Structures are given as structure tokens and as C-alpha cells.
């Protein structure tokens, strides 16, 4: 029972990625497939963030089975058995289909953690990213992303849509903490060793170019640093503006005071 004591003041996290890859089905495959209107084959997965060397999948360097008991993917209702439970790594589901929909991912942790399951959502991406993809909360209605024809899509190669995140455990139980510390995560590489492109993300429009070049993307710590730089730059700009406006404000206040005095002297 001493193991069930929580270690206070300790927060431990594990980086993961979740998302999907999708490829266009070749005409030959479509002939043989059971469903004539399926156009793509896709795989949705939850993996560790760093990629294994010489692998052709995104991420997956570490086996997450030591703290994840089960991952449940809830697909669209039109799929048979839409609730897919994956009880052992690799935590992924492969299917064919024609449409993009939201997949609910539920991660259940090992019993030692004493934690409830976490739910996250991922929009299944089948069609290639396009430049017209604007930020989600832009005021104008985003124009329809042009869906290329099957031949063009096949030429563009597989489509990747991945999101990095970190699972944060606060005040873990002692035995869970020891379990976690016996499996330290591989750190993200600074930059891709095999010159793999960085994955596309809607917050980083610059990554669109890289993703269109093709090839299996890889998460690197350079991406994190890049985002940090962008945030710092934005903050610097804001603070400059702030100083400018503060100067204006002080000036205006002086003007106001002057006018007030003038008015008081006249009355």
C-alpha cells in the first residue's frame, strides 16, 4: 500500500503524436476492393513522438505499451464495428474509405497510474494540404480546398496529418513513477538525421512547402524551437507596439491635463 502514495510536487510527461497517413488506392486495388467507392487507404495511430531511425512511419521510436493499456478509436458509424479497441502496440487502425470525418481517440492507461482515460479528437485527412488552407478562425469562409483528381493525388504521394502533444501526469503514484522512469523517452532529434521533411501544421504555413516535397515526415526539436522563435518574435513586436502606444498615451494624458487646467482657469 505504500506504493499508492502520491509523489507530491512531481509532474512527469510523455511526448506523443497522433494522427493519420492516407494514400490513394490505385485503380487495380479499387477493382479488388469490397467497397467500390472507397478511394483511399488510411491508418490512424497514436505513437511516440520521435521516429525510429530507418522507419517509414511517422514517430514510433518508443513502445508506448508500458503506460498505455488500450487505445480505442471510434470511427464513423458507417464502418462496421466502428469502435476499434487496440490492446497492444502498435496502437493504430488501418482502413479504406472515401470521406474525411472526426475520429475520437480514447487512451486508457495502465492500472498503476490510477488515472481515467483521456479523449482526443482527430480529423481524418485524406486529401492533400493546399495553400488555400487558411487559419481555422479567419473571418472569411475558407475557400473549398481543391480536391485533386485521383491521378494527381496519387502523384502527390501519401498525405500526413499529425499533431504533437504531451501527456502530463501530475503527482503520480510512486509505483507508477518508477514504472515511467524505467522507460525514459527517446529525446526528439534536433533535426531530421535522414533529412525527412517536417510535418505540415496549419499554424505553421511555412511547413506546407516542406510537406509537399514528399517523403515521410519526422518530428524534430527544431520544430519546437522554430515555434518558440515565432512566439518570441511576435511578443517582441507586441511589446514594441505597446511601448509606442504607452508613449502616445502619456502624451495624450498630458494634453488632457493641460486642457483641464486651461478650462479650470477660464471658469
Amino acid at each position: 500500500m505504500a506504493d499508492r502514495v502520491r509523489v507530491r510536487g512531481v509532474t512527469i510527461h510523455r511526448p506523443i503524436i497522433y494522427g493519420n497517413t492516407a494514400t490513394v488506392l490505385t485503380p487495380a486495388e479499387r477493382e479488388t476492393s469490397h467497397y467500390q467507392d472507397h478511394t483511399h487507404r488510411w491508418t490512424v495511430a497514436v505513437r511516440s513522438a520521435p521516429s525510429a531511425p530507418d522507419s517509414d512511419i511517422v514517430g514510433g521510436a518508443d513502445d508506448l505499451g508500458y503506460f498505455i493499456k488500450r487505445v480505442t478509436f471510434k470511427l464513423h458509424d458507417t464502418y462496421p464495428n466502428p469502435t476499434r479497441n487496440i490492446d497492444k502496440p502498435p496502437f493504430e487502425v488501418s482502413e479504406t474509405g472515401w470521406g474525411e470525418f472526426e475520429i475520437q481517440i480514447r487512451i486508457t492507461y495502465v492500472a498503476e497510474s490510477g488515472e481515467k482515460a483521456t479523449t482526443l479528437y482527430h480529423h481524418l485527412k485524406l486529401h492533400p494540404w493546399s495553400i488555400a488552407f487558411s487559419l481555422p478562425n479567419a473571418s472569411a469562409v475558407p475557400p473549398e480546398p481543391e480536391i485533386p483528381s485521383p491521378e494527381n493525388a496519387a502523384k502527390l504521394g501519401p498525405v500526413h496529418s499529425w499533431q504533437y502533444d504531451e501527456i502530463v501526469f501530475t503527482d503520480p503514484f510512486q509505483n507508477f513513477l518508477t514504472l515511467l522512469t524505467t522507460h525514459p523517452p527517446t529525446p526528439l532529434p534536433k533535426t531530421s538525421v535522414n533529412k525527412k521533411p517536417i510535418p505540415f501544421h496549419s499554424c505553421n504555413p511555412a511547413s506546407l512547402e516542406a510537406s509537399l516535397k514528399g517523403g515521410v515526415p519526422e518530428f524534430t526539436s527544431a520544430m519546437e524551437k522554430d515555434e518558440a522563435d515565432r512566439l518570441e518574435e511576435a511578443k517582441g513586436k507586441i511589446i514594441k507596439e505597446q511601448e509606442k502606444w504607452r508613449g502616445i498615451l502619456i502624451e495624450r494624458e498630458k494634453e488632457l491635463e493641460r486642457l483641464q487646467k486651461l478650462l479650470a482657469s477660464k471658469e
Partner: protein
Amino acid sequence: MAVSASDIRSALSLPSSSTLVQSTTPAPRKSQGQITKKPEGISRELYALIGPSAPSLVAHLAKPRLKQKPNFGSGGKVKWEWRPFRNAGRTDSLQLGHWVKAADDPGAEYPFTKYNVQSQSYTYSQEEYTRFLEDKDWTKDETDHLFNVVREYDTRWYVVHDRYEPPPDGPTRSLEDLKDRYYSVCRKLIRNRPWTGDEASKAQLLNSYQFDKDRERMRKDYIASLEDRTPEEIAEEEALFIELKRLEQNERKFKKERDELLRTLLGIDSGLPDIVAEEDGLSALSAEGFKKRKKNANEIEIPSTPSNIISLGPPPPKRAHSAKSAAYDAQHCILRVEPPASSTTKITHTPVHLRSFKLPAPKAALLPKVTQALTELGINPTRLVMPTRENCTRLESLIEATTALIDTKKVVDRVEQDIRVLRVRLGRASEGAEEDGKEGTPMEVDGGAGAGADVDADADADAEGEVDGRAQSILSTRSGRGRKQVRYSSQILSMPI
């Protein structure tokens, strides 16, 4: 008659003279050979005395030749010419002239410009004052006046103190009071304004504005008292100091003798440390031996302060522990925070979550504006590419800064509104008075009126006959603005003034 040896030999016809002569001639030649090398700089006899030893020779040779005048390197003549120059540090375009070597680069900047350093002066807005600069001893007017004087006299405190005029019914301010108020205001401003760069540089800047009033006063009093000592007092202090030193010396001597005695009497039972540990310099250098020695020394010397031992024990091992554990933590992605001291309150457990669930979001009231401002900069505040801990904190501070900016803009708008209203009232108050001097204000009066009430606008438009046409157009534009009392342009970041 002097008879030489050679005479005798020739008389006796002895051949031995030749051998004798032969043996002696090499000898004189050898000794002559030694002497043929001419020593330089010093006389021959002196050289023979010193011998060919280098140090004394060199020292002798290195003597400066004082007969000649030293040549400072400019054997040739240097041409100087009179050139006009400008000091980049001046605000006016004053042109002065000076003598410069002709060889000097004519385009070079005036070298003393860089010494014209301006000190950083702080100004604050009304809101900042009401929010965190309030003080019970200082009114706002006084604080404003203080800042003006400080800025004018470039924080030269003695001048500032002299020129500072307290308000008629206010207390007289000493130099320390002024400094204290100024520095505390600056520190509060630094702390509360959004800051680019990292925390370390902010802490450094904060440090530079440290000022402890009581300590300063005490220090100045102390120095003054030191100055004011009479010669007798100085002599007394010296005598006391010497006595103290002598006492310490005696104490040390007595202690040593006592230890010696104890050791000879009791040997190993004396409880004193081994001679080896004390006298061996090498072991004293090693950390362990040093610690032990200190610990033991403390034990003997001052048995009444056990806290010394305790303080020596933990710190060195703890330092090593934290360096290793930092690496360990980083490897396992662990973050340690101080658990809150209050163990009485029931600590609810934060459930496991994804870091992106807890992304900082701007406050609801300003949410649309903040998001708009951030999208203009290319940042999406709802999602991060890599939501790591550091990036999340960065996003948080970014949102804070943006909120502050939007607040400031709001206040600027409000103040401008007030200004316009005041101008209207001023215009009306002085309407009966001179017309000529107020040519400028009627335009603004129209504008201000438009912003205020439309009724006034009509009255004023009638009053200005000749500028009717223009007034009308200004009215139309201004009143349009006025109807929307709070006006924000679609482009928040480049709002025209």
C-alpha cells in the same frame, strides 16, 4: 753582472732550454687566447673580474644611454591641420573646429560621441499609476514633479535634491526619500510591464534599481561619523585595534600550548584530531579531509555552536545531487515544483491531461480582439505546433502582452475622447473672447462637437460663416466617427492616430 739562464745554457751547451721554452710558450699563448676576446660595453679588467656570467653582464649592458635624447618614434614631422567637425551626439547642427593629424581619416566619426550616454528614464501612464504606483506618502503630483526633475537633471541626485521643491504643505524630502520613491517606482514598472527577453535579464535590470533606504542612511551616517572623529578618538581606536590583535595572538598561542599539553598527557584519549590530518597540506586540500577538518575544528573550538556543523554537512552533497538530478529530470521529462506548504487543505488531484488541453486562453472580454491581433502576427492562439511546457509559457506571456496592448489602446481612445470633449467646452467658453487667435480650434471644435452631440454641431456650424463648406465635410466625417463611440479599425495593429 746579471747572468741569464740562456747564457749558462749556451756556456754549458745544454739542449734542454728548447723544451723548456716550448712548454712555456703554449701557456702564455693560451692565456693570451683567453684575453683576445674583447668584452663589449665594459672595460677589460671588469670583465675579467665578473667573468662570463650572463645576468650581471646583461644588467650592465642594459643601462640606459642617458647621453642621447630618446626618440619617440616620430622621427619625421607630422602635419596637423584645422578641420571643422560635428558631434553626432548634439541635437543642433553646431559645427566646431579642431586640430587633427592630416593623416587621420576625414570621414571618421567624432570619437567622443559614444560617451554621450543617456540614462534610461521611465514614464508612466495614469492607469499604471493608479494600478500599482500608489503610495500613502506621495501624491501623484509630487511623484510627477519628482520624475520631471530627475529627468531634467539626469539622475544626478545631489542636484535633484537641491532643485526639488516639495509642495507647500508637504513634508520636506531628504535625498534618501527621493531616491527611494524613484527606485521603487522604477522597480514596480519593470516588474509589471511585459518584457521581451528572458527572466534573467529582467532580474538583472531589477537588480540595478535596488535601493534600501535605511541601509543607505545608516551607511551615510556611519561615514559621516568616521569623518567626524577627533584625533583622540582615532588614536583610541588604533590602540584598541592593536590590543585586539595582540589578544587574538595570545589566544592562539595558549590554545596551541594547551593542545600540545593535552596530547602529551593523554595521547590518543585526548579527543584531539590526528596530527596527520591537521598538518598534512595535501589531505587538507581534498574535499573530504577539508570537511572533516573543519567539522572537527568546529567541534573543538566552538562547542556552543553546533549549527556550524549542520550547515556544513548538507550543502556540499546537496549541490552535487541537484546537478545530477536535473539531468535525470530532463531525461525523464519530470518537472518538480514545491508542493504547497498548506497540507491542511485537501489537495485535489489534477487528472492526467494533454498539454494542449490546458493552453492559456485570453480573457473572454477581449478574446476576439486578442485573437485578431495575434492572427495578424501569424500566430494561432488556440493551437500550437509543438505544445511543450516552454512553448506554452511563451504563448501565455504573449497573450498577456497582447492583452496589455489592447488595454492601452482602449485607454488612449478614452483619453482622446476626453480631449475632444474638453476642446469643445474650451471653445464654447472662449467663444465670446478673441476670434483671431482661435482660428485653429474652430475646426477641431466642429470635430469635437460632432463627436459629442449633434445639436452643438449645428450651432457651431452656423457660427462659422466663411468656413462653412469645409466645416460641413469635417462634420460629416467626424460625426460618423462619433456615432460609434468606441472606434476600432479593422486592422488593430496599424490603427491610424
